[in-house]
């Protein structure tokens, strides 16, 4: 397990332009595989247009206590990009002014942003129906100052969504780092103890499953049943839903695919599994992603590829719903990750 980000290691894949070049060269340049836009056009689904904005996904910073092998954010302890309170206020103003019903906080470890709690407190005053925090779990046990997070989440009725690639220690630690599985189990128990994830509890605790390798996720329902059985039997842990997410070929996962000589096969798998029905519900059609410095993107993946929204409005301070609704969604070959099989989004499958 490497403990530094690609950026810190000065790896060429820390450069978004380089990633986009790789995604357009080789098999796609030789037209062995169709480019995503060509595939969409063949189905009469190009250009991709947004529908009603429902979810504002805010990346409050790339700093994280973990360095996961598949991380599309290239997050880690060495990343210093952090959203300021001023930008958070601009996000709150937008939330209050739009009909977006879901606020989805992500990172990095969002809890590491010094204004994280202030943001949640303020956001809970503006009438959000579903306030999501994507917690890596281990942050809860990483330091004393985070131990009360379950209580804090409960107080503000935060919807906790956490990552867990497998119900066994070996496969989890292989992707997320040594000791992550045991710390995650401890954190899940702490969340259960205050009511999170319990049957019929309004305190929602969902898990995210990402494959720990160069393969696509299996059936979400079957995986959820296996996770529930294993976590309940082995650890007496409860949770609500499992969201299965396909790893997109960018950043550290792209680095892994290339280094392990799986890149071409993986792209073939994604393209072979292309499902036009998934295109109708991809998350970029109802979500906007905001970066730590306030720029707007069609999704968190485009944010990491520095593909800003194709609109005269590109920053949260200039937000205009009408103008943004007319944009075309920016696509590249990584988008095949969201349209494979039953589809993939931050809320799991889409078909």
């Amino acid at each position: 397990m490497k403990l530094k980000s690609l950026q810190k290691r000065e790896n060429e894949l820390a450069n978004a332009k380089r990633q986009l070049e790789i995604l357009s060269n080789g098999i796609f340049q030789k037209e062995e595989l169709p480019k995503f836009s060509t595939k969409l056009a063949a189905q009469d689904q190009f250009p991709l247009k947004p529908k009603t904005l429902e979810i504002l996904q805010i990346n409050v910073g790339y700093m994280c206590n973990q360095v996961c092998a598949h991380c599309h954010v290239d997050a880690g302890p060495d990343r210093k990009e952090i959203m300021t309170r001023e930008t958070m206020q601009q996000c709150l103003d937008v939330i209050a002014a739009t009909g977006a019903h879901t606020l989805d906080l992500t990172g990095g470890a969002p809890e590491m942003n010094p204004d994280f709690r202030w943001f949640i407190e303020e956001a809970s005053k503006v009438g959000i129906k579903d306030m999501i925090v994507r917690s890596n779990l281990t942050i809860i046990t990483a330091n004393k100052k985070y131990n009360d997070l379950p209580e804090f989440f409960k107080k503000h009725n935060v919807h906790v969504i956490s990552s867990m690639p497998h119900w066994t220690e070996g496969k989890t630690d292989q992707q997320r780092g040594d000791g992550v599985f045991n710390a995650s189990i401890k954190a899940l128990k702490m969340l259960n103890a205050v009511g999170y994830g319990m049957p019929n509890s309004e305190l929602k605790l969902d898990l995210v499953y990402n494959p720990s390798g160069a393969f696509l996720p299996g059936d979400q329902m079957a995986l959820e049943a296996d996770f529930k059985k294993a976590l309940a039997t082995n650890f007496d842990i409860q949770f609500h839903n499992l969201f299965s997410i396909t790893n997109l070929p960018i950043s550290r996962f792209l680095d892994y695919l290339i280094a392990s000589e799986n890149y071409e096969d993986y792209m073939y798998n994604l393209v072979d599994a292309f499902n036009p029905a998934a295109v109708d519900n991809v998350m970029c059609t109802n979500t906007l992603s905001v970066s730590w410095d306030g720029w707007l993107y069609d999704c968190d993946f485009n944010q990491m590829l520095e593909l800003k929204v194709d609109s005269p409005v590109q920053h949260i301070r200039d937000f205009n719903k009408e103008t943004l609704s007319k944009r075309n969604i920016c696509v590249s070959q990584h988008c095949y990750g969201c349209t494979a099989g039953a589809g993939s989004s931050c809320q799991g499958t889409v078909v």
Partner: protein
Amino acid sequence: MSNTYYEPSDLRKFGNITEWNEDLGKKFFEYYGSVFEEGALSAREKALIALAVSHVVKCPYCIDAYTQDGLKRGITKEEMMEAVHAGAAIESGATLVHSVQMMNKYKKLSM
């Protein structure tokens, strides 16, 4: 033509067999699909049986496909290896049980 009998990328072309006999090809794939649906056995159990049989028939395409399939289903490497041993035990048992025939013949021909 490739220089080897087995080409990994040929697995992706499996569906093309219908091009030379659409009727039988389609029937085969329909049958194949139905076999692996959830039934009295779970799809997961069938996936493990398929993995074991893939080894017994020594089909590299099948091993490739059902290892990936197992990973997708969250099947662990311990489960996969036990399944292969189940197949191997039957295969080696099938060899060894024939030694009864050898023993019979040996005894019959010996004074």
